């Protein structure tokens, strides 16, 4: 114990700028969510008795059903896909290996609109199959299907990364023992991948619970719908905030479960190993079945809706070259890139502070700061506005005391407030990815650096950042792709005359002009494809080789 204690105290000492910075950042990011939680103590104007009597049970039931269904669906598609593409070999594997993440480029509500467009009166599927032959997609089943198709890539990415890090000798040993692919999967890989599955499931559950547009379109009554109905319909922002807080507590429970699952799996990178890759070559019918199983989610979650959107967009294709449209694209990229940088920076700050002082009493702050992911975007946006306008008013009061001109609204209506909102909302994506990569860096590195009297900043720059580069890039790409799809916070917080692709798609959709959403939606998907391709290349690389090269 003593041998461990000495380097740890050496590491924890000094470098308090890091911890101060981390505390300020996590407090700021926690504030919008905390502002919601404070509403628990405010009177809600009699909303609760009414909700209890009428719709609360429905919100609970639909939320639980939807979240469970989507997590299950995403786990089967994402986990199964990761297993097949990493450990087995079959025709088309090299293509499907990266194609499986493509549905991530689609905003869920766009897939929902596209499918209803195909299945509703006048859609080509409706014309081919007739109204009676089709199950109604506007249902719980439809919602589960659509959200699973869009969200499974999170699980796929995480499970695949975990599988790739396993030593090939592990599977070789199983083979020597005469285990078939299924048995290796069930008895060896499932337990190994459990933390990744849990982490992915938490992300999928949070995305599902915070979704509004898709469930609204399908008539599913989740908590998000209830939150906004309470706010918009019953005119009770306080009641809505209280409902959101309930949702956040539920999420906190999920996160705690995920933590517990991960705690048991604290393995660090033990050094060089042989990469794991395609050890079960499948043949004949089994091989083609594997191809079909991986091709199906890519087709339904990407190719088919993309083709339908392209068909709708074709007559209006010329608009892409107009100045107006170029501005939409530039604005969208500006938001995505800025938010990716900001979120990654905060994620590194928090994750690194946590690593330097694992037993910090205020460590829960960093964890709590990632809860914004589970609240509906528009509710987070209100929290962010509340924090910013309070700061602005305080600054105004300070200026009045000092006898100088009030700075006015120096945050509201600027891009800063948007980046603030995105960081609040998507920090968990960046944080998880950075923290997981940091965990894999052996602590001996820190100890060695401490022995060489390197400061925390030097250690971070010279050792950790280069080693977690892949995780950092993953964090930025995931945030980028999510931000360019994000709608509700963007809509209400943006500056005057500042339109993005998602805003344009929304305006077309709320005008109920389905074909009008096609062009901006396709452009969002296209903008997400480049980072996703980068991501796919990164994850295809065998980590062992990367280590060896260095």
């Amino acid at each position: 114990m003593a041998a461990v204690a000495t380097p740890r105290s050496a590491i924890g000492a000094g470098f308090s700028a890091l911890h101060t910075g981390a505390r300020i950042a996590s407090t700021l990011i926690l504030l919008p969510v905390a502002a919601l939680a404070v509403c628990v103590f405010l009177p809600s104007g009699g909303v609760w008795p009414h909700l209890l009597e009428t719709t609360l049970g429905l919100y609970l039931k639909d939320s639980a059903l939807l979240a469970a269904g989507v997590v299950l669906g995403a786990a089967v598609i994402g986990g199964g896909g990761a297993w097949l593409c990493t450990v087995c070999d079959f025709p088309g594997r090299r293509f499907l290996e990266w194609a499986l993440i493509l549905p991530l480029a689609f905003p869920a509500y766009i897939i929902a609109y596209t499918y209803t467009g195909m299945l509703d009166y006048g859609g080509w599927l409706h014309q081919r199959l007739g109204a009676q032959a089709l199950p109604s997609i506007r249902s719980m089943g439809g919602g589960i299907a659509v959200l699973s198709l869009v969200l499974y890539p999170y699980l796929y990415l995480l499970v695949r990364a975990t599988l790739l890090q396993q030593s090939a000798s592990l599977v070789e040993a199983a083979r020597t023992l005469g285990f078939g692919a299924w048995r290796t999967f069930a008895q060896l890989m499932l337990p190994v991948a459990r933390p990744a599955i849990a982490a992915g499931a938490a992300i999928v559950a949070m995305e599902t619970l915070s979704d509004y547009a898709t469930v609204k379109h399908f008539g599913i009554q989740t908590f998000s719908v209830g939150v906004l109905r309470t706010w918009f319909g019953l005119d009770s922002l306080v009641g809505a905030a209280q409902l959101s807080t309930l949702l956040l507590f539920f999420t906190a429970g999920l996160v705690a479960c995920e933590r517990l699952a991960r705690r048991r799996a604290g393995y660090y990178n033990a050094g060089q190993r042989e990469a794991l890759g395609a050890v079960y070559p499948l043949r004949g019918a089994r091989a083609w079945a594997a191809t079909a199983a991986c091709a199906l989610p890519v087709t339904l979650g990407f190719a088919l809706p993309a083709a339908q959107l392209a068909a709708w967009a074709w007559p209006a294709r010329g608009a892409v070259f107009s100045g107006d449209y170029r501005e939409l694209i530039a604005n969208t990229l500006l938001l995505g890139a800025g938010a990716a940088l900001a979120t990654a920076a905060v994620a590194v700050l928090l994750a690194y502070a946590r690593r330097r002082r694992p037993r910090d009493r205020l460590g829960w702050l960093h964890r709590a700061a990632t809860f914004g992911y589970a609240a509906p975007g528009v509710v987070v946006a209100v929290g962010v506005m509340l924090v910013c306008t309070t700061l602005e008013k305080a600054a105004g009061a300070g200026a009045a005391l000092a006898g100088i001109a009030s700075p006015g609204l120096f945050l509201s209506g600027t891009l800063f407030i948007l980046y603030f909102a995105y960081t609040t909302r998507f920090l968990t994506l960046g944080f998880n990815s950075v923290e997981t990569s940091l965990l894999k860096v052996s602590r001996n590195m820190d100890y060695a650096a401490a022995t060489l009297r390197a400061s925390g900043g030097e250690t971070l720059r010279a050792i950790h950042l280069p080693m977690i580069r892949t995780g950092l890039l993953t964090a930025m790409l995931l945030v980028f792709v999510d931000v360019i799809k994000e709608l509700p916070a963007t809509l209400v917080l943006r500056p005057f005359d500042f339109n993005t692709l998602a805003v344009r798609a929304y305006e077309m959709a709320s005008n109920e002009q389905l074909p009008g959403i096609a062009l901006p939606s396709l452009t969002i998907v296209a903008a997400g494809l480049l980072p996703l391709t980068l991501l796919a290349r990164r994850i295809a690389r065998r980590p062992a080789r990367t280590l060896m090269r260095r």
Partner: protein
Amino acid sequence: MTSRQPHYHTALAAFALCCVLAPGPGGAEVNIYSARQEPLIKPLLDRFSKRRGVKVRLVTGKADALLARLKLEGRDSPADLLITTDAGRLYRAKEAGLLQAVESETLNANIAPRYRDPQNHWFGLSLRARAILAVAGKADTAAPARYESLADPVWRGRICIRSSDNIYNQSLVASMMHANGADATLAWAKGLVANFARPPAGGDRDQILAAAGGLCDIAVANTYYLAMMLQSGNAAQREAAKKIRVVWPNQRDRGVHINISGAGVTRAAKHREDAVALLEYLAGADAQRWYAEANNEYPVLDGIAPGAVLQAWGEFKADDINLELLGRLNRDAVELTNRAGWR
């Protein structure tokens, strides 16, 4: 090793650039928070901008989110004008002290008192009628002549209507509560729910498509959706719309339920004069004609004819309650739909 490190300073500089690129404020201008989508308001704003030589800046979004922004920004808010697509939200904005009274002879002359706030905090700028739409050959001969009849058991499993989350339905319920009282309206809503062909999903256009596709015989929707479908570039939409007949309900009593799109000058307005001028422009003949022709809404200004499609559906008697009532009764209406199990 050093050369392989990512360029963190570059990243920092890039982020700083991202923040700075925000567009800054200009000179003479009117700033608008609008719940009306850009394509449905921008052409008019551009015309006004050209005429008066004033820059018009726009943020669109969901009405309640924009209200929250306006409220939190307080007296520093840059917004001069709030535009919504229903009377309820304007009432809410007024109650929250976010709007100010405007005394304008033009507005008073052009807009009937029932379509504006009694204290002139907000003004209706276009009218939308919520009609009963019947599938030709299936329901039009016996179509319900009143909203009240939608709850009759003959229509069991034959009606499509969107969620009661939607403000148009909430306003319809509010108007019925005003006309028939809360108890009778609750009983009616329960009967209506029992008659649903499917749980509510999608928007007004989706209900019309569902009716045309044979899922139900009656849809309840605002008429401009049907008009848009009739003028659509998509053949299937036109074909679907042609199967539908418009039935004007309650012609022997209070009339068709009407809502407005409207606007009010904010209390925080820094460009009040230009904002009032914009309001007057929107209530004037030029803009009213555009509403009628491009948007298929009914103009508030007397003497402007509705578009050709709307004229084909004939004239109708409109409910003449003061629309402020819709705002007053909105919360009660939502609670009533919750009790009735209308999702």
